[in-house]
């Protein structure tokens, strides 16, 4: 009897330990743990050449397809503006995405450490850990984050980390018609991004520099009126559920 009880308790402990291990140490979590700690010689970054962007939204669509971004949400978009100056009317296009900042505002606020930065600079969300508190959504100065209505977790541009790891370019860069999105390794002096940054040292700007987040998405030809919150008339477009 005593033996049976001891066996039963031993079994119970084993089952409990197994259940805890299953709950807290899934293969997906092991992958994210590896991503958190993996060393890298790269530091990925992007230069957006504003003059080359034609506002075709091919990048927006490519991103949606590559990353299964749900309806009404965007990991990247080309904000398009009509600028009236006296008699003259121009269009202005500005590609927006997560800036994969050097000092990301989203990481320190996360209450469970779900948001993290890889050694190559890519800021990611650990979907296995995220509680969907949306604190990171509030903290991002670029409105680059949202709560994915399908997964109920924080979502954002990952620089297509899965493609980078396979030696490919992010989908938005791959598809850019005008070659406005230039992607590469900021640590490599021979990379196109580094050369562009060196060539246009005085002209390169970032969005909202006063926020102190040190973005790693750089803009060539950025009109200062569009570097922060744009002072203008709001877009007519609304998410479909709001229209309904």
């Amino acid at each position: 009897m005593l033996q049976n009880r001891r066996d039963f308790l031993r079994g119970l402990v084993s089952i409990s330990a197994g259940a805890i291990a299953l709950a807290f140490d899934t293969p997906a979590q092991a992958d994210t743990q590896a991503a958190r700690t993996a060393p890298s010689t790269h530091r990925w970054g992007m230069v957006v050449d504003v003059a080359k962007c034609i506002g075709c939204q091919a990048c927006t669509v490519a991103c949606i397809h590559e990353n299964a971004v749900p309806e009404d949400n965007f990991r990247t978009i080309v904000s398009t503006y009509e600028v009236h100056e006296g008699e003259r009317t121009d269009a202005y296009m500005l590609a927006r995405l997560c800036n994969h900042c050097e000092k990301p505002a989203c990481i320190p606020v996360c209450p469970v450490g779900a948001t993290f930065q890889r050694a190559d600079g890519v800021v990611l969300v650990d979907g296995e850990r995220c509680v969907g508190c949306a604190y990171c959504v509030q903290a991002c100065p670029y409105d680059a984050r949202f709560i994915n209505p399908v997964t109920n977790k924080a979502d954002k541009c990952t620089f297509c980390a899965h493609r980078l790891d396979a030696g490919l370019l992010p989908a938005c860069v791959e598809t850019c018609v005008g070659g406005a999105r230039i992607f590469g390794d900021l640590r490599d002096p021979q990379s196109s991004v580094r050369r562009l940054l060196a060539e246009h040292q005085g002209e390169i700007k970032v969005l909202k520099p006063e926020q102190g987040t040190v973005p790693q998405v750089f803009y060539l030809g950025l009109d200062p009126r569009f570097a922060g919150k744009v002072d203008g008339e709001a877009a007519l477009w609304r998410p479909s559920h709001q229209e309904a």
Partner: protein
Amino acid sequence: MDTHIVELVNVTRDTAWLPWAVQYFFLIGLSVGSFLLSLRHYVFARGDVRLARLALLGALVCGLPAPVALLSDLHQPGRFYHFYLFFTPNSWMSWGAFFIPAYVTGLLVYAWLALRPDFAARAAAGGRLAALWRLLAYGGFESLGARRLAAGITTVAALLVALYTGMEVEVVRARALWHTPFLPPQFLLTALAGAVGLALVFNRSFTGYSVETEARLNRLLLWLQCAVIALGLGWFALASSGLNATHARALAEVADSPRWQLTAVWAALAAVAPVALIVWRPVGSGWITGLIALHSAWMIRWTVFIGGQDIPKTGAGFYDYHLPLGHDGLLGLLGTAGLWLFLLIVIASFVVPPRHDRAAH
């Protein structure tokens, strides 16, 4: 040259902190305020017994449903245990996950120690529930030392809750309206004013209305409202003078909006009206001053959270928030109110002594 910019295509982000968050910040604020209001009698054995009892009732009925509202605001509520598995000391929200249970547990122990002699008296009076009262009294000793200890620990937890709820919002640099040192003290002051308002409403709602209690609460509300107005004016002065860039940007983002102008006028009237009413009628105005104080405490939180998230961080103009009718909107607000009402009915029967006992208190 005259420039006019029209945004043709841009992203619209949904409100990520839902009305549940407003309810949480409102309820936990009222609870902390009510708890602090009850201390004078239960710790120092001074002051108004009825006031302390009503405040204790307010602390309990607001403190217990508050974490439910907070949990509901998570988009993954089933993962609440991640807060404890993955403690992140640089996040105020992570600290909050420890402060809230500490406060609520402390409050329950403090309330029990405060009410224990009452339970014993009710057990002694007999009746159908005598056994329950006897069980709750657990001897029924007037343990002032234990009560003071519980009050001390709970006060620390309450102040930490007040600190974290303010700082959690204040540190969000991305939102100019939130990123101000005026916010945490304003949250605390409006919470205290709301707690006084709740006690005023309870004073009129439960039998045994006391004129002295109302006068005392109205006097306190008068000072609190003056402090709320002073702090609001301080923020406005800093923002309109342009001395601080963040404050100036916060004002500039909303100043031209008719909706925000209406909100500002409404908030100012709601802050001044109780002051005028109390000066005019220090007694007999408790219903209305109490309700206005409660309304102001809720309104500031709604405006800060829902209104604040309506301001795009990069895009032009405003996002349009429409209150959904489902659990993420109206149903959530009604659900919290329903839970609050249920708890009020249950807890009032423990905290407010029955009519025949009242003479003894």
